[in-house]
Structures are given as structure tokens and as C-alpha cells.
């Protein structure tokens, strides 16, 4: 029984246009122009308990809207969803006690007060027994290394520290489902890494279900085995990371370290030269042609080192995005069909 079930969920908005110019403003007093935005266009998804799923997609794809629908923050236009058996937008207290939503760059902690006051408020609202509360709080702040900051007003904390406090607050009531909307956005590399480590550990320990949206491939690569790509309000891909790479990049990247005296002329015949800095060169070679090409290069050149790797994940994703954003919808459907169908990934 999947812990999250989504059937044909859709959300549309009507947006009114603001007019430019004096005359248009006057006319705007009587009649307004509008357009309809289809944020989510009917998605189907199943998530099993304990999964760590990433939502990827270009800006405006509908990832955050989907998370908000699943949190009950907004009502859908049509469709159905169940999380742990509850309908999210009914906003039942029983449901709200069992999940948490964390949004990057949005703060729910009281600005002028120390974080621990906000935590205490959380305890009262979620009715967490005192000893359990203290235990959980100490554990979380310990893991995130922010215990020494509990008494400092939140406004004095750095962005990374604030995010850690937000995470702590969200997990105080030990939710079974966690929704994370771009949790590491705007943070420096060290903070991002710390939070990734924490999430990985926490998820493995507690076996909770996590849905994460992020732009940072490192987050996704480090944490999730299952990736759902959403674009223009629909799911375009649902499978593993390696599936994306296999599906969307036809190339491999071959990095060659040549001997100092070796000339680097004529490399173009073996593949697209993406970088050349003697004595190093990077080539993009078609997957199927890698062994052949390598053999040919090694035969004709003096090479000290070779590395063959997948192209950066970003590139594969970017290809995917541009393909789904373009006119070629049938092509993307075809690509999707050759991969594992949605909902059946374990």
C-alpha cells in the first residue's frame, strides 16, 4: 500500500493582468484581462513508505505546487491524492500531526526570539510530551551542530544556521512524511553538505518517506535513488538517476592525459573536443563508440592516463528539460516509454 497516492491531480490559477499606460489603467477600472495558468496538469504518482524521492524540473514546472497540494496548503482544481490515507486539503489535525513541510528561504521561526522559544511553541502546538520533546530536540540539534545557538535570536543566525533550525523545528514532532522544498537553496557548500549528510542519516535511521525538490544535482545524487522529473505540470520521467543519464545522454566524456611531448593535433576525428589544455584533452564520444575510439587513440598517441565517465548530471537534466519544453512532446513520451513506467520503481 503506497504511503502517497496521487491520481490525476491538477491545479490551475486565473491570473489577472496589470495594465501599462494611462489609458489601459483607466480601462482596467472596468474590465480586466486574465489568463489561466495550469500549474499542475494531472499527475499520477505512487510513493512507497521509506522512499526518498527527488522532484526535478525547470522553474515553474509545478514541483512546489505539487508539494503544497500534498501538504494541504492549497486546494486542487481536480484529481485526488492520499497521504497516509488522509486527503491533504481537508487539513485534518490528525494528518497535520504526521507530516512536515520545510521550504528553503522561508522562515517560520519567530524572528526576534531565540530558536528555542519557537521550539517550545511547536511543542505546545503539536502536544509533544516534555521528555520526548527534549530528547528529540537535543538529538536533532546535536546532529546539526546548532545546539550552542539555541539561545540566540533567529535574526542573528546565518542563513545556513537558520535552515538547520528550520529543519529541527520541522522534525520535532517526528513526522512520518517529510516534504522538502529546495532546502539548500542559497546556502554555501559546507552547509549544503552538512544538511545532505543529516538528511541521509535521518532518513536511514527513521525510515521516513521524503519528497525533495531541488535544483542542486549534488543534493539529488547524494540522497535519492528515485527521481521524478516534472515539467509544465506533468511527470515526464520517473525512474533512477542512472536511468536519466542512460536515457538522455548519448555520450561519455573521455579525459586524456597525454605525454608532454605528444602533439594534440587531429583529435577531432575521434569525437567532439570539449576542452583542450595541453597535455590534457576532453572528448565527447558516442557511448557505443567508446572502445573503438579509445583503441584508435591509444594506437596513434602516447597517453599517460585515461578516464571515461558519464557526462555531468546537469547536462543530462538540461537535455531532458529542453526537450520537454520544446515542441517535441511525442519524442519525450517515446523516451519515457523506453524507461521504467511510473510507480513501479523500487
Amino acid at each position, binding site marked *: 500500500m503506497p504511503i502517497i497516492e496521487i491520481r490525476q491531480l491538477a491545479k490551475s490559477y486565473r491570473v489577472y493582468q496589470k495594465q501599462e499606460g494611462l489609458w489601459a489603467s483607466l480601462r482596467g477600472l472596468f474590465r480586466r484581462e486574465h489568463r489561466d495558468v495550469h500549474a499542475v496538469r494531472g499527475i499520477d504518482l505512487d510513493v512507497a513508505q521509506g522512499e526518498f524521492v527527488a522532484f526535478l524540473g525547470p522553474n515553474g514546472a509545478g514541483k512546489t505546487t505539487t508539494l503544497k497540494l500534498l501538504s*494541504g496548503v492549497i486546494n486542487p482544481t481536480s484529481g485526488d491524492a492520499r497521504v497516509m490515507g488522509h486527503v491533504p486539503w481537508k487539513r485534518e489535525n490528525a494528518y497535520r500531526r504526521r507530516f512536515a513541510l520545510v521550504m528553503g528561504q522561508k522562515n517560520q521561526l519567530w524572528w526576534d526570539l531565540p530558536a528555542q522559544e519557537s521550539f517550545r511553541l511547536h511543542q505546545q502546538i503539536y502536544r509533544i510530551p516534555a521528555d520526548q520533546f527534549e530528547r528529540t530536540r537535543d538529538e536533532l540539534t546535536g546532529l546539526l551542530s546548532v545546539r550552542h545557538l539555541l539561545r540566540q535570536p533567529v535574526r542573528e543566525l546565518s542563513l545556513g544556521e537558520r535552515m538547520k533550525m528550520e529543519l529541527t523545528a520541522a522534525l520535532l514532532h517526528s513526522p512520518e512524511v517529510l516534504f522538502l522544498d529546495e532546502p539548500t537553496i542559497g546556502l554555501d557548500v559546507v552547509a549544503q553538505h552538512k544538511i545532505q549528510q543529516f538528511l541521509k542519516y535521518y532518513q536511514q535511521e527513521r525510515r521516513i518517506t521524503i519528497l525533495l525538490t531541488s535544483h542542486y544535482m549534488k543534493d539529488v545524487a547524494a540522497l535519492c535513488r528515485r527521481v521524478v522529473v516534472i515539467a509544465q505540470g506533468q511527470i515526464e520521467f520517473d525512474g533512477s538517476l542512472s536511468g536519466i543519464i542512460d536515457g538522455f545522454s548519448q555520450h561519455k566524456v573521455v579525459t586524456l592525459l597525454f605525454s608532454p611531448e605528444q602533439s594534440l593535433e587531429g583529435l577531432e576525428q575521434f569525437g567532439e573536443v570539449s576542452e583542450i589544455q595541453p597535455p590534457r584533452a576532453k572528448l565527447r564520444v558516442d557511448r557505443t563508440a567508446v572502445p573503438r575510439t579509445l583503441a584508435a587513440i591509444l594506437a596513434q598517441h602516447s597517453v599517460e592516463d585515461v578516464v571515461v565517465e558519464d557526462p555531468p548530471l546537469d547536462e543530462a537534466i538540461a537535455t531532458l528539460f529542453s526537450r520537454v519544453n520544446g515542441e517535441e512532446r511525442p519524442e519525450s513520451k517515446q523516451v519515457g516509454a523506453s524507461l521504467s513506467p511510473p510507480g513501479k520503481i523500487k
Partner: protein
Amino acid sequence: MKEAASYLRVFLTFARNSLVRDMTFRTNFLLESLASLSWMLANLGFYLLIFSHTRYIGRGSGWGQYEFFVFLSTTMFVNSLVQAFFMANVDEFSEMIRTGRLDFALLKPIDTQFVISLQKIDWSSLVNFAAGGVLLAFSLVKLAARPANPLQLEPLMAVLYTLYVLCGVAILYSLMIALSATSIWLGRNQTLYDFWFYITNFSRYPMEIYSGPWGRPLRWVFTFLVPVLVVVNVPARLLAQPLRPETSLHWTLAAFAIVATVASLAASRWVFNRALTSYRSASS
């Protein structure tokens, strides 16, 4: 019962957090208290000025100086309570709608209207409550020494007075929250706030001043449609008991006040919940 206890604990935490916050900005707190107080004193000066030119307000209404001061102190009680507990929150509610921060309130396993309405308390507004108390005490003493029909205080009056002051606060709160909730549909609308200010302006004086061909319909509208006149008038008349033969009307009005309170609270809750279903959040 456990529910109620839990909600009470949350409210006390809100109160405590607000107090801690206010005390962190102590000078600000003092300045704001002083500001409220000086504003009130200036208004008092204005009314003293009026009463230096006339003995009563309204023909045969019985609102003399000290009766009017009872009215004034009732206004101060109601306004200071509304300002302390609800004004900042209702304002913040519109901001939360606009910025999408309302999301956080919707995620909590607690009644959303409760959280929205009570999360911050403005302690500095309560100085006016105290000032109102002083003025009321002073005026009641003077009224007890009134040559014609001297005031006699009974415990029942005190109980009813408190009840009706709370009803008044509830009615004003309902209006505020309903207006604020409409910003989900209308966007941040400054006009709506000015509107609120203008409407409550009508409740600053005894309802007897609304007489004549224009006055009577106005009085009817603001008693039965948008019951702002009920807010201060009912409790104030209870105490000040100006000379008038229409005591039966008075009791009808008092009964109506209860009805109006319940109806306002119910209506505003309905509007609030409808508004929440249309909430769109804000793009991240």
C-alpha cells in the same frame, strides 16, 4: 476538555513570547505606551472643551459630561482590547496572505483562525485599558453624586458590563477578520483598511446623535446590519443610564447585542474558512 487546555497553553505561550519580544525592545514599548496615552489624553481634552460649551450632547438624551465619560472609558476598554489582541494579527494576516507565509499556519495541527488571530499580543496597548479604568472609576463616583437619579451600582451591572464589553470586542474582531480575509480574493487593499477605520469612527459617540431624516436610517444600518453601534453603546448605557423613558428598548437592544455577537462570530468564521479554500500561496 483536554483540547481546551491545550489551546490555552498555546495561547499562554503566544502571550509569553510577545511579552519577551516587547521587552527586548523596551524603549519602543515605552514610547508606544506613551503615544497611546497621550493620544487618549488629547481626545479627552477635546471632549472637555466640548463640555465647556454645552451641558449635554443630544436633546433630552441625558448624555452629560460624566455620562459621556463613562461612554468614553467603555470605548477605551473595547479599543485597547481589540488593539492589544487582534489588530496586529489581522494586519499580519493580510501580509501572510500576500507573502505566502500563511502556509506555515496551515501546516500546524491547530485551528488556523486561532493561530492567526492570537499569535501576537501588543502589550503596550493595554496602557489605555488602565487609563480607561481610571476614567471610569472617576466618572462613576461623580455619577453616584448626581442630584437627579443618582447612580447605584449593583454586582449584576458589573457582570453584564464585562459581558457586553467582551461582546463588543468580539463584534469588532469579527468585522476585522472578515475584512482581512477578503484580501485572499482582492489582494492587499489599503482601501479596505481605511474603510474599517471610517466604520468604527461611527461608534465613537452615543447612538442618540444619529437623529433626523439622515440620522435614523444610519443608526438602523449601524445597529442591525453592521452592528458597530452596539459595541460601545450597550455596555455604556448599562452603567450611565441616561434619563430616558425607553428602557424596554434598551433591553431589546441588549438582547440583540448577544444575537449580533454570535451572528458576527459565525459569519466571520464562515468567511474565513471560505477564504482559506481559495488561498493560492505565493510562488517560492
